[in-house]
């Protein structure tokens, strides 16, 4: 009897072991992500003259302290980043996605609302108070911070002093500029110098956006409702835009390449856009000393409009399901979230107007810029930044703007503004309907 018992126990044991081994084999799936030994970060950004340079310098600084970390900075067109993020996040496939991604402020709320769970909370990396007040709202959702604000999008009028003076105007004339005055100067420039005043891309109505914000308005109102038909600031902006086109002082460009090419080749006398364009302007080293920066022109026809606005600007976000959340957060904490040395370096290299408050302590901030004729451009930028009217970008800026581009096209073509905007109000409401 004893023998049988022992046998039974042995057999049972053997079978159990066999089953354990087998089942182990069956369930043993390969888990790819979250390998602690894999210290590779991927960063996606656009604009190789600006954001990419910044990312690469941050990488250098980070790798000094963490030599085993591999940081892979990928240059992409912003459209590509948008398309790939949307495709991958909606299907929750993280293969090939970056750990850190630069997202434009206008789009941030849309992403944070649609994919809240995909972004890492960064409250332990930085505090909203560390950054310029107008920037931090877009990086938050439900009171939690998801993005590290990066560059200021403060708008400015970059202009060629040589052309302006040749046209009979002074740098004085460029201060406290209105769009009416701008067109006037443009006509003179066109006449005297044979160059256009600025470029316009018919499919990009950033100018209208800036004008609108200078009057404290947006495509959506404070509650996030589409506001086109009865938006006086918008109407005034479109009017100013139409005047600009009709004046015949603009160079029509179809793409970014031509936009950059136009001012680099001396084909336009000014560039009215965000301060982030400065490094692209500085690429044309032969034009050093010929440029100056003035505030954004206000709309004379709109009382609310002031000489300050904003365009673009972006923040760094961490995708938490790609597999290196902690490393990515550590990277941001040691670089963009508070490293004044990095900011100081970037001021020099890419004319970064940082939104990090402590960055104003960086020595390079008070330096005059040789390229801009010794002008203390950072002082100017930061002064204007403080004045930028705060608006609610909402979640649908680009969805509405796609529609508005068409509307502006029609109005510039001669259609009646009120009826066109009335039609497009309905379309825009339909487009953003949830």
């Amino acid at each position: 009897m004893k023998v049988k018992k022992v046998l039974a126990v042995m057999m049972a044991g053997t079978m159990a072991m066999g089953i354990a081994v087998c089942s182990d084999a069956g369930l043993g799936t390969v888990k790819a992500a979250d390998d602690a030994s894999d210290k590779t970060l991927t960063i996606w950004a656009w604009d190789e003259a600006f954001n990419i340079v910044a990312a690469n310098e941050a990488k250098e600084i980070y790798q000094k302290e963490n030599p085993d970390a591999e940081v892979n900075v990928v240059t992409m067109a912003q459209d590509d980043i948008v398309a790939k993020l949307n495709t991958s996040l909606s299907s929750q496939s993280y293969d090939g996605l970056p750990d850190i991604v630069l997202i434009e402020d206008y789009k941030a709320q849309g992403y944070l609302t649609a994919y809240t769970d995909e972004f890492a909370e960064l409250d332990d990396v930085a505090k909203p108070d560390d950054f310029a007040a107008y920037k931090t709202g877009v990086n938050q959702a439900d009171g939690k911070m998801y993005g590290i604000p990066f560059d200021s999008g403060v708008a400015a009028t970059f202009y060629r002093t040589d052309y302006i003076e040749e046209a009979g105007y002074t740098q004085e004339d460029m201060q406290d500029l209105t769009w009416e005055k701008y067109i006037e100067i443009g006509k003179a420039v066109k006449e005297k110098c044979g160059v256009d005043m600025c470029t316009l891309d018919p499919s990009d109505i950033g100018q209208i956006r800036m004008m609108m914000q200078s009057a404290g308005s947006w495509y959506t109102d404070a509650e996030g409702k589409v506001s086109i038909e009865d938006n006086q600031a918008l109407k005034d902006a479109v009017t100013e835009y139409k005047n600009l086109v009709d004046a015949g002082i603009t160079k029509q460009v179809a793409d970014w390449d031509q936009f950059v090419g136009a001012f680099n080749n001396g084909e336009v006398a000014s560039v009215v856009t965000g301060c982030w364009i400065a490094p692209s302007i500085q690429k044309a080293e032969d034009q050093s000393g010929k440029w100056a920066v003035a505030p954004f022109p206000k709309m004379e026809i709109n009382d609310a409009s002031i000489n300050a606005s904003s365009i673009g600007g972006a923040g760094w976000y961490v995708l938490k399901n790609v597999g290196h959340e902690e490393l990515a957060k550590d990277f941001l904490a040691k670089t963009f979230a508070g490293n004044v040395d990095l900011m100081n370096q970037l001021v020099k290299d890419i004319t970064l107007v940082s939104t990090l408050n402590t960055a104003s302590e960086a020595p390079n901030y008070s330096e005059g810029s040789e390229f801009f004729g010794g002008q203390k451009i950072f002082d100017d930028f930061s002064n204007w930044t403080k004045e930028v009217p705060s608006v609610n970008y909402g979640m649908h800026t680009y969805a509405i703007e796609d529609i508005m581009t068409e509307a502006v096209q029609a109005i510039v073509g001669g259609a009646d503004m009120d009826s066109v905007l009335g039609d497009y109000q309905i379309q825009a409401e339909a487009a953003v309907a949830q």
Partner: protein
Amino acid sequence: MRRGLHLNSMVVRILCTVALGVLSAAAIISAIVIHISTDIFVDTYGKSQEQVFRQIENDLNDFHENLMKIVNAVDSSWAFHLYLEDGEQEPALSFQTVYQMDSDLEKAIPSNINDISVMVIGMNQKSYINRAETITTPKGEILAGEAAVKALDNPDSIQYYMAENGYTSTTKESRVLMAVKALCFLESKEPYGLVFITIKEEDFEKFYKFFTSDAAEFYLIDSSGEVISSNDKEVIGRREEKDYLAEAAEAGVLRYQTKEDGRLLTVLNTDMPYFACRAYGVIDNGKALDKLYNAPQILLICAVIGAAVMVITLLVVRQTTRPLSVMVRKMSGAIDKDLKEHMDITGSEEVQELARTYNRMLDDLNSYITKLMEIQKEKRKAEISALQMQINPHYIYNTLASIKWLIYEGDTEKSTRTIDAFIMLLRNTISNSDEFITVGQEIENLKNYVLINNTRYGDRIKAEYFVAPGCQNCMILKLILQPFVENAFFHGFPSEMPGHIQVFAERDGSNLRIQIVDDGVGMDQGRLNDLKGKRTKTEHFTGIGVNNVDDRLKLVYGAEYGISIDSTINEGTTVTIIFPAEEFKA
């Protein structure tokens, strides 16, 4: 105790056999199963991959179709025509043109294609790109580049071209695949521009990524043998000259099986005419199978089961053979223990049966031997008593002749005494068939025998008898003393020399000691041996000689009893007989 396992022992042999059996069974079954499933796997896997491969082909052709649509949209857009023309335009018109260009192109690009960039360059170097990026290569260089030349040489179709670097800021550091198409005027067939649709090679990989793995490679190879795209980044841009690819292409079948360096390869291949390429999918079946069979795990399972079986076998065999080895030890010791020790009936049924049989055999053997010994004893007794019955006839003649002489001399009294003694002697030896008599009767017999001898040979030898009190009635074998007295008479006193024969009987503990002592000439060692060995040719009273006496004593009383003879030349001989003292019971 010998506990160690001998190499030759049953346990070791069984264990070895079982281990060998289990392992070879596992090996053979594994080999057969793997072999069978390999064939099935290669076939099914090949078939399923064939579907995947077809899917890639379709996707790529769809992709081509989409690119074709984009190119056609550009070609048929008035806005692009206008834009690429030389000369200034009215601001409002140019504004409209540019907007129309953008929207024409946007409509033409399917929403699921988001990783291409479309660049249009006029022969006058006017350019358009649909992405927010700059064109980093000078336009003159682009127009003179290999890709442009290829497209201008074949203006009717899209030309695919692989370049180490793209022409724009986002692609200048990555390998790209470009689809280039010349735009020509309808009538004159003169080219007025080129469309470059650029996709990064890493994005292009998504078309076949789901096919590739460690075991499966994909190659897109153009007509010159150059690899346009592959998951193996090393070979891109190089000429691929693997024989099996060429063989597969020549075979003209979608799925081609071949062997290369001992690897079993399945080569899927198809012509991609739009791309002017041939697509190859190479599956290394060996590697694909490796994933299927986890060899270390199979070995581990075999080892675990094998070890368990061995342990169980060891226990069972040990259990079975323990009584057997006990039995073996007992059997080898049985001889030393007079075949008396029985086996314990334990262990398995067979072993119990064996033990029972052995015990029975041991019993049989014992009783046989006992019986045999009994028979032997009986036989010897019978022999001796037969000898004892044999009164030598010569003795009778000579005695009777001596008595006749006495009668003739007229010595009536002496002759009467002699006849009486003779009668007594005959009666006690022949008539009395008992084997045992009392010491007193034996002494009486001796007296009669000595009397007859004295009558026949004269009175020169005197016999004296000393029987200790209490010995008179002890049992003694009949005629056991007579041969020694007879021997002393005839050999102790040669040449008519006078002498004495003394017989002592006394107790020695529980034994009776009887000594026959003479003061004759004694014997040397040689004669002593003769005496014990064979019968002498002297005229004996009965068939029993000195040599028989010792046998008889040992036969009756046991080996520790018997006679000892002590003789010294010219001093005499002492014969000592020792046997157990027992009172006579009539």
